[in-house]
Protein backbone atom coordinates (compact mmCIF):
# COMPACT_ATOMS: atom_id res chain seq x y z
CA UNK A 1 0.00 0.00 0.00
CA UNK A 2 2.78 2.35 0.96
CA UNK A 3 4.81 1.39 -2.07
CA UNK A 4 1.95 1.97 -4.51
CA UNK A 5 1.19 5.37 -2.97
CA UNK A 6 4.82 6.26 -3.41
CA UNK A 7 4.73 5.09 -7.06
CA UNK A 8 1.64 7.15 -7.78
CA UNK A 9 3.30 10.18 -6.23
CA UNK A 10 6.40 9.72 -8.37
CA UNK A 11 4.39 9.26 -11.54
CA UNK A 12 2.37 12.37 -10.77
CA UNK A 13 5.54 14.33 -10.16
CA UNK A 14 7.09 13.15 -13.43
CA UNK A 15 3.93 13.86 -15.38
CA UNK A 16 3.58 17.37 -14.04
CA UNK A 17 7.24 17.97 -14.79
CA UNK A 18 6.92 16.85 -18.40
CA UNK A 19 3.92 19.11 -18.92
CA UNK A 20 5.53 22.08 -17.22
CA UNK A 21 5.92 25.01 -19.55
CA UNK A 22 8.40 27.82 -19.71
CA UNK A 23 6.99 31.25 -19.05
CA UNK A 24 8.86 34.03 -20.79
CA UNK A 25 8.68 37.81 -20.74
CA UNK A 26 10.02 39.09 -24.05
CA UNK A 27 11.11 42.56 -25.05
CA UNK A 28 12.27 43.26 -28.59
CA UNK A 29 14.00 46.56 -29.36
CA UNK A 30 14.54 47.91 -32.86
CA UNK A 31 18.11 49.19 -32.54
CA UNK A 32 18.27 50.89 -35.92
CA UNK A 33 18.11 54.58 -36.61
CA UNK A 34 16.12 54.46 -39.83
CA UNK A 35 14.43 51.09 -40.37
CA UNK A 36 10.94 49.91 -39.46
CA UNK A 37 10.12 46.28 -38.61
CA UNK A 38 6.93 44.90 -40.17
CA UNK A 39 4.70 42.77 -37.86
CA UNK A 40 6.93 40.49 -35.82
CA UNK A 41 6.61 36.72 -35.57
CA UNK A 42 7.89 34.93 -32.49
CA UNK A 43 7.78 31.13 -32.22
CA UNK A 44 8.88 28.61 -29.64
CA UNK A 45 9.45 25.35 -31.45
CA UNK A 46 11.09 21.94 -31.57
CA UNK A 47 14.60 21.79 -33.03
CA UNK A 48 13.47 20.88 -36.56
CA UNK A 49 10.73 23.49 -36.92
CA UNK A 50 12.90 26.50 -37.73
CA UNK A 51 11.64 29.60 -39.56
CA UNK A 52 14.84 29.92 -41.62
CA UNK A 53 18.38 28.56 -41.96
CA UNK A 54 21.41 30.55 -43.13
CA UNK A 55 23.11 29.31 -46.31
CA UNK A 56 19.87 27.55 -47.31
CA UNK A 57 17.18 28.74 -49.74
CA UNK A 58 14.25 30.66 -48.23
CA UNK A 59 10.94 28.79 -48.07
CA UNK A 60 8.06 30.45 -49.92
CA UNK A 61 6.59 31.31 -46.52
CA UNK A 62 9.78 33.08 -45.48
CA UNK A 63 10.02 34.83 -48.87
CA UNK A 64 6.44 36.10 -48.42
CA UNK A 65 7.43 37.61 -45.07
CA UNK A 66 10.79 39.01 -46.28
CA UNK A 67 9.50 40.66 -49.46
CA UNK A 68 6.20 42.01 -48.19
CA UNK A 69 5.90 41.57 -44.43
CA UNK A 70 3.02 39.09 -44.76
CA UNK A 71 3.23 36.60 -41.90
CA UNK A 72 0.24 34.40 -42.78
CA UNK A 73 2.11 31.48 -44.44
CA UNK A 74 4.78 31.39 -41.69
CA UNK A 75 2.05 31.40 -39.02
CA UNK A 76 0.26 28.50 -40.75
CA UNK A 77 3.55 26.60 -40.96
CA UNK A 78 4.33 27.22 -37.28
CA UNK A 79 0.85 26.24 -36.14
CA UNK A 80 1.01 23.06 -38.19
CA UNK A 81 4.31 22.20 -36.51
CA UNK A 82 2.81 22.63 -33.04
CA UNK A 83 4.94 25.67 -32.26
CA UNK A 84 3.87 28.28 -29.73
CA UNK A 85 3.17 31.40 -31.78
CA UNK A 86 3.04 35.11 -31.05
CA UNK A 87 2.18 37.16 -34.11
CA UNK A 88 2.35 40.92 -34.34
CA UNK A 89 3.07 41.84 -30.70
CA UNK A 90 3.71 45.48 -31.68
CA UNK A 91 0.29 45.63 -33.43
CA UNK A 92 1.79 46.96 -36.62
CA UNK A 93 5.18 48.43 -37.43
CA UNK A 94 7.94 48.68 -34.84
CA UNK A 95 9.54 52.08 -35.43
CA UNK A 96 13.29 52.76 -35.18
CA UNK A 97 14.64 52.70 -31.61
CA UNK A 98 11.35 51.59 -30.07
CA UNK A 99 10.46 48.39 -28.21
CA UNK A 100 7.59 45.97 -27.90
CA UNK A 101 6.87 43.59 -25.04
CA UNK A 102 4.95 40.34 -24.86
CA UNK A 103 4.74 37.13 -22.89
CA UNK A 104 5.04 33.60 -24.18
CA UNK A 105 4.16 30.31 -22.52
CA UNK A 106 5.90 27.43 -24.22
CA UNK A 107 5.00 23.77 -24.45
CA UNK A 108 7.58 21.42 -23.03
CA UNK A 109 8.70 20.15 -26.45
CA UNK A 110 9.26 23.67 -27.81
CA UNK A 111 12.76 24.38 -26.53
CA UNK A 112 13.91 26.92 -29.13
CA UNK A 113 12.98 30.51 -29.84
CA UNK A 114 12.90 32.08 -33.31
CA UNK A 115 11.90 35.53 -34.57
CA UNK A 116 11.40 37.16 -37.97
CA UNK A 117 10.21 40.53 -39.27
CA UNK A 118 10.80 42.31 -42.55
CA UNK A 119 13.00 45.40 -42.56
CA UNK A 120 11.58 48.47 -44.33
CA UNK A 121 12.75 49.92 -46.58
CA UNK A 122 14.57 46.89 -48.07
CA UNK A 123 13.78 44.55 -50.94
CA UNK A 124 13.96 41.28 -49.01
CA UNK A 125 15.77 42.06 -45.80
CA UNK A 126 14.62 40.72 -42.47
CA UNK A 127 15.66 40.72 -38.85
CA UNK A 128 16.03 37.18 -37.60
CA UNK A 129 16.73 34.93 -34.68
CA UNK A 130 17.14 31.25 -35.43
CA UNK A 131 16.71 28.55 -32.79
CA UNK A 132 17.95 30.23 -29.64
CA UNK A 133 17.89 27.58 -26.93
CA UNK A 134 15.56 28.74 -24.15
CA UNK A 135 17.48 28.54 -20.86
CA UNK A 136 16.04 26.32 -18.14
CA UNK A 137 17.38 28.56 -15.41
CA UNK A 138 15.29 31.54 -14.34
CA UNK A 139 16.89 34.86 -15.13
CA UNK A 140 17.17 37.65 -17.67
CA UNK A 141 19.06 37.04 -20.92
CA UNK A 142 20.02 39.38 -23.78
CA UNK A 143 20.39 38.32 -27.41
CA UNK A 144 21.39 40.54 -30.33
CA UNK A 145 19.82 39.93 -33.75
CA UNK A 146 21.30 40.45 -37.22
CA UNK A 147 19.81 41.57 -40.53
CA UNK A 148 19.51 38.86 -43.19
CA UNK A 149 18.84 38.94 -46.91
CA UNK A 150 16.38 36.25 -48.04
CA UNK A 151 18.25 35.92 -51.34
CA UNK A 152 14.94 35.85 -53.23
CA UNK A 153 14.87 39.34 -54.76
CA UNK A 154 17.53 41.60 -56.22
CA UNK A 155 18.24 44.65 -54.08
CA UNK A 156 17.20 47.27 -56.65
CA UNK A 157 16.30 49.75 -53.86
CA UNK A 158 13.32 51.11 -55.77
CA UNK A 159 10.17 51.91 -53.79
CA UNK A 160 7.29 50.43 -55.79
CA UNK A 161 3.75 50.38 -54.42
CA UNK A 162 2.30 46.88 -54.45
CA UNK A 163 5.70 45.19 -54.73
CA UNK A 164 5.25 43.24 -51.51
CA UNK A 165 4.01 40.11 -53.29
CA UNK A 166 6.69 37.44 -53.72
CA UNK A 167 8.40 37.82 -57.07
CA UNK A 168 7.40 41.45 -57.64
CA UNK A 169 10.61 43.51 -57.59
CA UNK A 170 10.75 46.57 -55.41
CA UNK A 171 10.44 47.83 -51.87
CA UNK A 172 6.75 47.91 -50.92
CA UNK A 173 6.97 50.91 -48.57
CA UNK A 174 9.27 53.31 -46.77
CA UNK A 175 7.28 54.04 -43.59
CA UNK A 176 9.62 56.77 -42.42
CA UNK A 177 8.43 58.86 -45.35
CA UNK A 178 12.01 59.77 -46.11
CA UNK A 179 12.67 57.79 -49.28
CA UNK A 180 12.68 59.17 -52.81
CA UNK A 181 11.56 58.09 -56.25
CA UNK A 182 12.81 58.14 -59.80
CA UNK A 183 15.87 55.98 -59.22
CA UNK A 184 17.13 53.82 -62.06
CA UNK A 185 17.65 50.77 -59.84
CA UNK A 186 20.67 48.96 -58.44
CA UNK A 187 21.72 45.41 -59.37
CA UNK A 188 18.65 43.61 -60.70
CA UNK A 189 19.52 40.10 -59.58
CA UNK A 190 20.72 38.64 -56.34
CA UNK A 191 23.65 36.35 -57.18
CA UNK A 192 23.60 34.71 -53.75
CA UNK A 193 20.22 32.97 -53.68
CA UNK A 194 20.71 31.50 -50.21
CA UNK A 195 19.76 33.28 -46.99
CA UNK A 196 22.77 35.38 -46.04
CA UNK A 197 23.83 38.36 -43.94
CA UNK A 198 22.38 41.46 -45.60
CA UNK A 199 25.13 43.54 -47.22
CA UNK A 200 23.22 46.69 -46.23
CA UNK A 201 21.36 49.35 -48.13
CA UNK A 202 23.47 51.50 -50.41
CA UNK A 203 21.21 54.49 -51.12
CA UNK A 204 22.43 57.63 -52.80
CA UNK A 205 22.31 61.39 -52.21
CA UNK A 206 19.66 62.22 -54.82
CA UNK A 207 16.11 61.34 -53.74
CA UNK A 208 14.63 62.43 -57.08
CA UNK A 209 17.01 60.47 -59.32
CA UNK A 210 20.21 58.43 -59.00
CA UNK A 211 20.29 54.66 -58.89
CA UNK A 212 18.50 54.13 -55.56
CA UNK A 213 15.33 55.56 -54.05
CA UNK A 214 16.89 55.25 -50.60
CA UNK A 215 19.06 57.77 -48.80
CA UNK A 216 22.68 56.92 -48.12
CA UNK A 217 22.58 58.87 -44.85
CA UNK A 218 19.26 57.58 -43.49
CA UNK A 219 18.64 54.00 -44.56
CA UNK A 220 21.90 52.26 -43.77
CA UNK A 221 22.61 50.13 -40.75
CA UNK A 222 25.20 47.86 -39.18
CA UNK A 223 24.53 44.66 -37.24
CA UNK A 224 23.09 44.09 -34.75
CA UNK A 225 19.69 45.54 -35.66
CA UNK A 226 17.63 44.32 -32.71
CA UNK A 227 18.02 43.36 -29.08
CA UNK A 228 15.88 40.68 -27.48
CA UNK A 229 15.59 40.57 -23.72
CA UNK A 230 14.20 37.31 -22.39
CA UNK A 231 13.15 36.86 -18.79
CA UNK A 232 12.70 33.22 -17.88
CA UNK A 233 10.38 32.97 -14.89
Amino acid at each position, binding site marked *: MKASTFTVAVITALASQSLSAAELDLKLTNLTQGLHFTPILITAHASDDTLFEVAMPATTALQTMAEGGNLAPLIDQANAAGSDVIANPAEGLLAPSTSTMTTLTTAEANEYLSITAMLLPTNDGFVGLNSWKIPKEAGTYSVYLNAYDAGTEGNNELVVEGSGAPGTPGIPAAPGGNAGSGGTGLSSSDSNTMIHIH*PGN*LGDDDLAAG*SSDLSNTVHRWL*NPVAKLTVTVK
Partner: protein
Amino acid sequence: MLAFNRPLMIIALAGALAACSDSNDNDDDVTPTPEPVSYSFTLQVSNLTAGQPFSPIAVIAHTEGTLWKVGDPATTALERMAEGGDNSVLLQFGSAIANVSSEAPVAPGAETTLTITTDSIEELKLSLSTMMVNTNDGFTGLNAMDVSSLAVDQTLTHFTFAYDAGTESNSEASGTIPGPADSGEGFNEIRDDVNVIAMHPGVVGQQDGLTSSVLSSEHKFDNPLAKVVITRTQ
Protein backbone atom coordinates in the same frame (compact mmCIF):
# COMPACT_ATOMS: atom_id res chain seq x y z
CA MET B 1 40.26 16.61 -16.40
CA LEU B 2 38.96 13.17 -17.18
CA ALA B 3 39.72 13.77 -20.83
CA PHE B 4 43.31 14.67 -20.01
CA ASN B 5 43.92 11.50 -18.09
CA ARG B 6 42.36 9.05 -20.49
CA PRO B 7 45.14 8.92 -23.11
CA LEU B 8 47.75 8.69 -20.39
CA MET B 9 45.86 5.84 -18.80
CA ILE B 10 45.59 3.99 -22.09
CA ILE B 11 49.29 4.48 -22.79
CA ALA B 12 50.13 3.32 -19.26
CA LEU B 13 47.87 0.31 -19.64
CA ALA B 14 49.33 -0.58 -23.03
CA GLY B 15 52.81 -0.27 -21.55
CA ALA B 16 51.90 -2.56 -18.69
CA LEU B 17 50.47 -5.17 -21.06
CA ALA B 18 53.50 -4.95 -23.32
CA ALA B 19 55.83 -5.37 -20.33
CA CYS B 20 53.75 -8.34 -19.25
CA SER B 21 54.08 -10.13 -22.55
CA ASP B 22 57.81 -9.38 -22.72
CA SER B 23 58.37 -11.21 -19.45
CA ASN B 24 56.52 -14.26 -20.69
CA ASP B 25 57.93 -16.57 -23.38
CA ASN B 26 54.63 -18.24 -24.10
CA ASP B 27 54.10 -18.06 -27.89
CA ASP B 28 50.36 -18.02 -27.46
CA ASP B 29 50.65 -14.56 -26.02
CA VAL B 30 49.85 -11.90 -28.56
CA THR B 31 51.68 -8.67 -27.96
CA PRO B 32 48.87 -6.14 -27.85
CA THR B 33 49.25 -3.22 -30.19
CA PRO B 34 48.64 -0.02 -28.26
CA GLU B 35 45.24 1.37 -29.24
CA PRO B 36 45.94 4.56 -31.22
CA VAL B 37 44.20 7.48 -29.54
CA SER B 38 42.92 10.13 -31.88
CA TYR B 39 40.52 13.01 -31.65
CA SER B 40 38.56 14.18 -34.67
CA PHE B 41 36.64 17.38 -35.23
CA THR B 42 34.51 18.51 -38.13
CA LEU B 43 34.12 22.18 -38.96
CA GLN B 44 31.08 23.06 -41.05
CA VAL B 45 31.72 26.50 -42.55
CA SER B 46 28.93 28.53 -44.19
CA ASN B 47 29.74 31.63 -46.23
CA LEU B 48 27.11 34.19 -45.12
CA THR B 49 28.24 37.05 -47.37
CA ALA B 50 26.30 38.40 -50.34
CA GLY B 51 29.21 38.39 -52.78
CA GLN B 52 32.55 37.55 -51.18
CA PRO B 53 33.90 34.10 -52.06
CA PHE B 54 36.16 32.66 -49.35
CA SER B 55 39.66 31.49 -50.32
CA PRO B 56 40.44 27.85 -49.41
CA ILE B 57 39.81 27.62 -45.69
CA ALA B 58 42.76 26.88 -43.41
CA VAL B 59 42.12 25.02 -40.17
CA ILE B 60 44.97 24.61 -37.71
CA ALA B 61 45.06 22.55 -34.51
CA HIS B 62 47.52 23.88 -31.97
CA THR B 63 48.10 24.31 -28.25
CA GLU B 64 49.45 27.83 -27.93
CA GLY B 65 49.66 31.16 -29.72
CA THR B 66 47.25 32.85 -32.11
CA LEU B 67 47.23 33.29 -35.89
CA TRP B 68 46.69 37.02 -35.48
CA LYS B 69 46.03 39.66 -32.85
CA VAL B 70 44.19 42.96 -33.33
CA GLY B 71 46.71 45.76 -32.84
CA ASP B 72 49.71 43.68 -33.86
CA PRO B 73 51.30 43.61 -37.34
CA ALA B 74 50.31 40.58 -39.46
CA THR B 75 52.83 37.79 -39.84
CA THR B 76 54.03 37.31 -43.40
CA ALA B 77 52.15 34.00 -43.41
CA LEU B 78 48.91 35.78 -42.54
CA GLU B 79 49.62 38.58 -45.03
CA ARG B 80 50.11 35.99 -47.77
CA MET B 81 46.68 34.49 -46.94
CA ALA B 82 44.89 37.84 -46.46
CA GLU B 83 46.19 39.46 -49.64
CA GLY B 84 46.14 36.50 -51.98
CA GLY B 85 44.22 33.62 -50.40
CA ASP B 86 47.35 31.45 -50.28
CA ASN B 87 47.23 29.59 -46.95
CA SER B 88 50.18 27.25 -47.60
CA VAL B 89 52.58 29.05 -45.24
CA LEU B 90 49.94 29.81 -42.62
CA LEU B 91 49.15 26.08 -42.37
CA GLN B 92 52.73 25.58 -41.12
CA PHE B 93 51.95 27.74 -38.06
CA GLY B 94 54.64 27.31 -35.39
CA SER B 95 52.81 25.29 -32.78
CA ALA B 96 50.52 23.45 -35.24
CA ILE B 97 50.03 19.79 -34.45
CA ALA B 98 47.65 19.21 -37.39
CA ASN B 99 46.25 21.23 -40.25
CA VAL B 100 43.82 20.94 -43.12
CA SER B 101 42.69 23.17 -45.98
CA SER B 102 39.50 23.00 -48.03
CA GLU B 103 40.35 22.01 -51.59
CA ALA B 104 38.51 24.88 -53.20
CA PRO B 105 37.17 28.36 -52.44
CA VAL B 106 33.73 28.54 -50.82
CA ALA B 107 31.19 30.60 -52.76
CA PRO B 108 28.71 33.03 -51.15
CA GLY B 109 25.81 30.97 -49.76
CA ALA B 110 27.81 27.72 -49.94
CA GLU B 111 28.97 25.42 -47.15
CA THR B 112 31.93 23.13 -46.76
CA THR B 113 32.94 20.67 -44.06
CA LEU B 114 36.54 20.08 -43.02
CA THR B 115 37.80 17.31 -40.75
CA ILE B 116 40.89 17.57 -38.58
CA THR B 117 42.37 14.79 -36.44
CA THR B 118 44.92 15.04 -33.65
CA ASP B 119 46.51 12.54 -31.26
CA SER B 120 46.13 14.80 -28.24
CA ILE B 121 43.32 16.92 -26.84
CA GLU B 122 45.16 18.48 -23.92
CA GLU B 123 45.06 22.30 -24.26
CA LEU B 124 43.84 21.81 -27.84
CA LYS B 125 42.83 24.91 -29.79
CA LEU B 126 41.38 25.20 -33.29
CA SER B 127 41.99 28.22 -35.50
CA LEU B 128 40.44 28.96 -38.86
CA SER B 129 41.25 31.56 -41.46
CA THR B 130 40.12 32.56 -44.94
CA MET B 131 40.31 35.62 -47.21
CA MET B 132 37.31 37.50 -48.57
CA VAL B 133 38.79 37.41 -52.04
CA ASN B 134 37.00 40.49 -53.42
CA THR B 135 38.92 42.72 -50.98
CA ASN B 136 42.49 44.01 -50.81
CA ASP B 137 43.47 42.27 -47.58
CA GLY B 138 40.28 41.34 -45.73
CA PHE B 139 39.97 38.07 -43.89
CA THR B 140 37.78 36.27 -41.40
CA GLY B 141 38.23 33.36 -39.08
CA LEU B 142 38.46 32.02 -35.58
CA ASN B 143 41.43 32.50 -33.32
CA ALA B 144 42.43 29.68 -30.93
CA MET B 145 39.02 28.28 -29.97
CA ASP B 146 39.53 25.96 -27.01
CA VAL B 147 38.10 22.50 -27.75
CA SER B 148 39.95 20.57 -25.03
CA SER B 149 36.80 20.00 -23.00
CA LEU B 150 34.50 19.18 -25.92
CA ALA B 151 32.86 15.76 -25.55
CA VAL B 152 32.21 13.44 -28.48
CA ASP B 153 29.16 14.65 -30.47
CA GLN B 154 29.19 17.98 -28.64
CA THR B 155 29.12 21.08 -30.87
CA LEU B 156 30.26 24.68 -30.66
CA THR B 157 28.73 27.29 -32.98
CA HIS B 158 30.62 30.47 -33.78
CA PHE B 159 29.95 33.45 -36.04
CA THR B 160 33.06 35.16 -37.40
CA PHE B 161 33.97 38.83 -37.86
CA ALA B 162 35.76 40.64 -40.69
CA TYR B 163 39.34 41.75 -40.13
CA ASP B 164 41.73 43.87 -42.16
CA ALA B 165 45.33 42.65 -42.24
CA GLY B 166 46.54 46.25 -42.53
CA THR B 167 49.24 45.23 -45.00
CA GLU B 168 47.72 46.58 -48.22
CA SER B 169 45.75 49.79 -48.60
CA ASN B 170 42.07 49.35 -49.39
CA SER B 171 42.32 51.03 -52.77
CA GLU B 172 39.84 48.59 -54.39
CA ALA B 173 41.74 49.58 -57.54
CA SER B 174 41.94 47.56 -60.71
CA GLY B 175 44.74 45.02 -60.53
CA THR B 176 44.90 44.89 -56.70
CA ILE B 177 42.14 42.41 -55.83
CA PRO B 178 42.67 38.70 -56.52
CA GLY B 179 39.01 37.63 -56.52
CA PRO B 180 36.69 37.31 -59.53
CA ALA B 181 35.68 41.00 -59.26
CA ASP B 182 39.14 41.92 -60.54
CA SER B 183 41.45 38.90 -61.00
CA GLY B 184 44.26 41.19 -59.90
CA GLU B 185 47.38 40.70 -57.81
CA GLY B 186 47.44 38.59 -54.66
CA PHE B 187 50.33 38.69 -52.22
CA ASN B 188 52.85 41.51 -52.46
CA GLU B 189 55.45 41.84 -49.71
CA ILE B 190 55.31 45.65 -49.76
CA ARG B 191 53.27 46.95 -46.82
CA ASP B 192 51.60 50.24 -47.73
CA ASP B 193 48.92 50.41 -45.03
CA VAL B 194 48.69 50.90 -41.24
CA ASN B 195 50.60 47.65 -40.60
CA VAL B 196 48.42 46.55 -37.70
CA ILE B 197 45.46 44.21 -37.78
CA ALA B 198 42.06 45.78 -37.07
CA MET B 199 38.40 45.04 -37.63
CA HIS B 200 37.56 45.59 -41.31
CA PRO B 201 35.83 48.91 -42.09
CA GLY B 202 33.98 47.33 -45.04
CA VAL B 203 34.33 47.94 -48.76
CA VAL B 204 33.15 51.12 -50.48
CA GLY B 205 32.57 50.27 -54.12
CA GLN B 206 32.12 52.38 -57.21
CA GLN B 207 28.41 53.14 -56.69
CA ASP B 208 29.20 54.52 -53.27
CA GLY B 209 31.52 57.16 -54.61
CA LEU B 210 34.94 55.48 -54.82
CA THR B 211 35.13 56.08 -58.54
CA SER B 212 38.33 54.06 -59.02
CA SER B 213 36.88 50.96 -57.28
CA VAL B 214 36.33 47.71 -59.16
CA LEU B 215 33.81 46.63 -56.52
CA SER B 216 30.03 47.16 -56.52
CA SER B 217 27.23 47.04 -53.97
CA GLU B 218 27.04 43.23 -54.10
CA HIS B 219 30.56 43.03 -52.63
CA LYS B 220 29.57 44.88 -49.48
CA PHE B 221 29.43 42.88 -46.27
CA ASP B 222 28.48 43.26 -42.64
CA ASN B 223 29.33 41.07 -39.67
CA PRO B 224 29.11 38.18 -39.18
CA LEU B 225 30.83 36.71 -42.24
CA ALA B 226 30.72 32.98 -41.61
CA LYS B 227 28.96 30.45 -39.45
CA VAL B 228 31.25 27.71 -38.12
CA VAL B 229 29.89 24.65 -36.38
CA ILE B 230 32.63 22.64 -34.66
CA THR B 231 31.68 19.06 -33.74
CA ARG B 232 33.91 16.59 -31.99
CA THR B 233 33.28 13.31 -33.79
CA GLN B 234 35.85 11.08 -32.09
